[in-house]
Each structure stands twice: as C-alpha cells, then as structure tokens.
C-alpha cells in the first residue's frame, strides 16, 4: 500500500551513479589504508564506511522516499546500536579510572 502512496520510482541511471560512487569510495578506502595517516586511519576508514552505508540505506534500500514509519524503524535500529556501543564502552572507558581517587 505504501508504495502506491509514494509513487517515486528510482531510475536505473540513479542506481548506476550510486554504484559508481560506492566503488570510488571503496578505492578511496584502499588508498587511505596505504597512506601514512597515523592515528587517523580508523576514523577516516569508518567515516568513509558511514557515507557508503548511508547511500545504501537511502537509495538501494529505498529509505529516501519511504513513509515516516520506515524511517522510525530504521532510526530505531540505530538507537539500539547506539545503546549497545554506549553501554559497552561505558565499561571499557571507565576501567582506567578504577582506584584513581583512592
């Protein structure tokens, strides 16, 4: 039913463009992996990955033209992913301060 309420149809051309961007970003990931970035390796690689994932969600998974409920579902999963990271890191990041104030 929702498809009829949102009659937007992605063209083959737009898929090809997104695909080429993804390929380019993959090449960029390999390139940065071989560059002397020091501490910045992980943030840069993860940043590129986030951009790629966002493109996949928005276009290949049709989120861009989906109803609000679909956005809620997608957003909810990220909130839960955030819970998993935040509370797990709450453990790792607070281990160092044990005993510091004794």
């Amino acid at each position, binding site marked *: 039913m929702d498809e009829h309420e949102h009659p937007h149809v992605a063209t083959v051309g737009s898929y090809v463009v997104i695909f080429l961007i993804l390929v380019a970003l993959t090449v960029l990931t390999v390139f940065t992996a071989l560059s002397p970035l020091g501490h910045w390796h992980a943030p840069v690689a993860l940043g590129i990955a986030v951009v790629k994932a966002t493109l996949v969600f928005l276009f290949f998974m049709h989120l861009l033209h989906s109803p609000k409920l679909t956005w809620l579902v997608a957003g909810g999963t990220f909130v839960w992913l955030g819970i*998993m990271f935040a*509370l797990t890191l*709450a453990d*790792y990041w607070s281990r160092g*301060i*044990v005993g510091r104030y004794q």
Partner: protein
Amino acid sequence: MSTVAYSPPKAEPIPVAGDYGPETRVDYINCAWGVRSWLLTVDHKRIALLYLFAITAMFFLGGAFAVLIRIELLTPKSDLFEPDTYNRMFTMHGIVMTFFFLIPGVPSVLGNFLLPIMLGAKDLAFPKLNLASWYIYILGCLLTLAGIIWGGIDTGWTFYTPYSTRSAHTSVMPVAVGVLVLGFSSILTALNFIVTTHTMRAPGLTWFKLPLFVWSSYATSLVVMLGTPVITTTLVLVAVERFAGVGIFDPKAGGDPVLFQHLFWFYSHPAVYIMILPAMGVISELVTAFSRKTIFGYQFVAFASMAIAVFGFLVWGHHMFVSGQSPYASTIFSLISYVVAIPSAVKVFNWTATLYKGSISWATPMLYAIGFIGLFTIGGLTGLVLASPPVDVHVTDTYFVVAHFHYVMVGGTIMAYMGGLHYWWPKMTGRMYPEGWAKAAALLVFFGFNLTFFPQFLVGYAGMNRRYASYVDEFQVLNVLSTAGASILGFGFLLPFGYFGWSLRYAKAAGPNPWGATGLEWTTESPPPPHNFEVTPTVTLPPYEYATHN
C-alpha cells in the same frame, strides 16, 4: 455490509459430544487431510500445531537432560557420569530448553494460533513466511541434534569465550549454527506479528481495545527484532575466531573475552523478556476470564510491556559483575536493573487488583495463573537481590542463581504456557480436557516445582556452585529434596501429555465459548473455520467487558 457487532458472550453450559460434531462443519482441521496438507499448509492455526509438536518434543528432550542432572546430584560424588559428561548434560539441558522451548514456546504456539484470531484477521500478514519460520526452526533443531549426537557440547548454554573458541573440543559449531539458524525463525515470526498487528486489525479494533496478549506479543516481537541479530552476529564472530583464528575474543590473538559477554548478554538478557513477556500476556487473559472482571489499569499493563521491552535492553551488565567489568559500569547496570523491576511489579499488582472482588473460579488455567503470580514474584524479587553487585559477587555461579532463573522461567513462562494451553485447548481442538486430571497435574507441577527449586536457593546461598558434578557432603539433604521434587514435577508434565491426547478422541465437545470469556477468539467456532470467522467481526467494546453482562 455483512459484519456482526461484537458483544461479549455469556457463559453457556458445555454442550455434550455431538452438538458440534466435526463432521457437520468445516473447520481448519477437517478441511484437508494427509501429511502434505499439513507440511505445506499456510494456515496459521495448522502451523501453530506443527510448532506444538516440535516444541513439545524439544521440551521432553531438554527435560530428559534435567532428569539425568538431578539423578547425578542425588549423591555428592560424581558417580553416574564423568565430570566431562556432566558438563555436556547441563549444557544441552540449557541450550535445548532456552533456545528451543522457552524462547519460541508461547509466541510460536499460542501466538501463532491466537494473534490473527484476536485481531479478527483471516491469517498472519505473511502466511508463507510463517511456514518458512517453522522449517527454519526444524533445521535449527536438526543441526543442534546433530551436534548433540556427534560429541555433544560442554560450553554451558552461554558459549563463553575463550573456552568456546579455543579450548572446547566438543561440537560447538553445529550447535552454535543451530542456534544461529533458530534466530532467523524467531525474527520471521516477530516480523509477521508486528506487521499483522499494525495492518490487519478488525474494524473498530483500535490499539487500546487490543487484548493484552496482543500487546505483550507485540512488545516481544520488537525485542526479538532488535536483539536477535546481535546473537546471530556474535555466533558468527565465534565461528570466525574458531576457524580463521582472527583475534576477536581470544586475548592471545589480541581479542577480549569480556567483549563476548557484552554482545552475548545484549541479546540474552532481553531474551529473558522474550520468554516472560508473552507469558505475562497469557496471564492477563486468564486472570480476567476466571475472575470475570476487566483488567485493573489496562493502559498501565499495556505500557508496562513496552517499558519492559525498552528497559530490558539497558541492564545486561548485571550478568557481568565478576567478569572484570568496570565497577562504574556495574553500578549503572545495577541501578537500571532495579528500574526494570517497576513495570514487572506494575503487572503483578494489577493482576492482584483484578482478582479483588472478582468472582473467581478455580479452573485449571486459573490454578496455573495464580501459581505464576506467586512464583514469578519470587523469581523477580530474587532477581533484585542478584542485581545488587555486593550480593551478586557472593552468590555468582551458585545454585541461588539457578533457583532464581528457574522461578522466572519454569515458575513463570512454563506455568503460563501450561495455563494458556489448557485455556485455549478447547478452541484449538474443539474438545475439553478432563478437568479433574488437569487440576491434579497443575497441583503436582506447583508442588513439584517448589520442592525442586526452593532448596536450591538455600544450598546456593550456603555456597554450592552450579555446573559441578560433585559437591560437599553437607549439601546432600537439600539436593535429595530437589531431586525428589523434580520427579514430581516431571510426572506433572507427563500427565497433560496423556490426557490431552485422550481428550482429542474421547472428551466432550467444547462449543465456541466454554469459559464464557470475552475476546474475538471466543466468538468463532471451536475449532475455528479455515479463515477464522464466517463474517469479519466489528469491535465496539474494550476488551474484558465482563461487567456489562455479569
């Protein structure tokens, strides 16, 4: 428009056999014959029965392991099994019971059968996906059974690393893959329930007119959808480490074993709510039907389910107080664990308030419901004891913990499952069960259960460790009591197996509404026609309107 207004039915005398003879009317059971018609069915009611068979088989397998454990623990020495064999016994008991019975139990049997009917729908939103979920469940069972036969598994049901990835020489992978496959079955069922609840409610059936069983099934489905992918991923990571040697959890290869515990419990604490929330939904139906009153504080009970679903995801670290987790994180997890007790307590108080001044009848389902309220309360309150880090450090990995979660899982989930099965048995089969036998079985289960697990609180608090085949002599009396209770409990579970089978052929016909209960499922025939209703029902009243016709 050929719709009928929904009004609460009156209690009516139970008709004698023949009044609703199966040969006079087409229902979902007699509409097609043969193995093919069952194995290729897309009818949610038939799929519920397929699940009932599979889950009952797994329940008795898990029970058999429990029997062997209790026999071994009759004596302080490990004389029946080698310690290695004993490790396999409790691991396989835990894995089979948790993943193959408790998690799918209420949703895939009672939920599958009832959810569409309670919504006034013809079926679930995706009937073929529903059948696929059963086949995936069977595939998961077969993989796990292969692992059990082919060497067994001794990691404990928790698969803790680095033992599971590095040291265990048992069939960890077939069992882990079986559990992983099972996750997809849960996800498909949950997806089906969510979409069906959103899109297929009968005319007039607004969210706040939904039966509370639907609310709790919906909340459970959300937990399944959000949590299960994490255990799936975690088991894949275990496989990657075991086969490819990538250091994820193994400290020798640069990994962190505590990370496994975070990921595992991120799913497995919410999984406790996957097991108990649908059971709570069953109890809401039973308590109202057998005290002939509307539920006290409908919206509180409904929102309590949602609150449990959300807060259940924030407390997993209470399983990790002795893991090396930072004490600051432990404090946070401990505090949130206390908070999650509030919605559970709301439910217990509201059920109790529902009983107040009700006209209570002591049919078998009500015995199970009352048993649930008492036992779940003990299980829940001892959970608070364990959520306190200073106490938990003392009783971690003792029988106190074992007793606590069996009060929640057996005293809670299984009592509700049995109560629900008796309550809806007439709807599912068209036949009444024998009330006298059923009451006897319910009492045996209740007393057998308490005799099994109450001594374990005592022996655990005194320091008896779980997961050992031997123990010091002082603990023998309590262990003998526990084993004696387990044999009563086991007999109590075998009885329904016999009389349910008997009832299919010899019991009197039930009629559409043997309990005089409200709810759409009681407005249709027993067993229901293939598409549940002859005409689509229209709902005008809130649920549990017993007052209007008492």
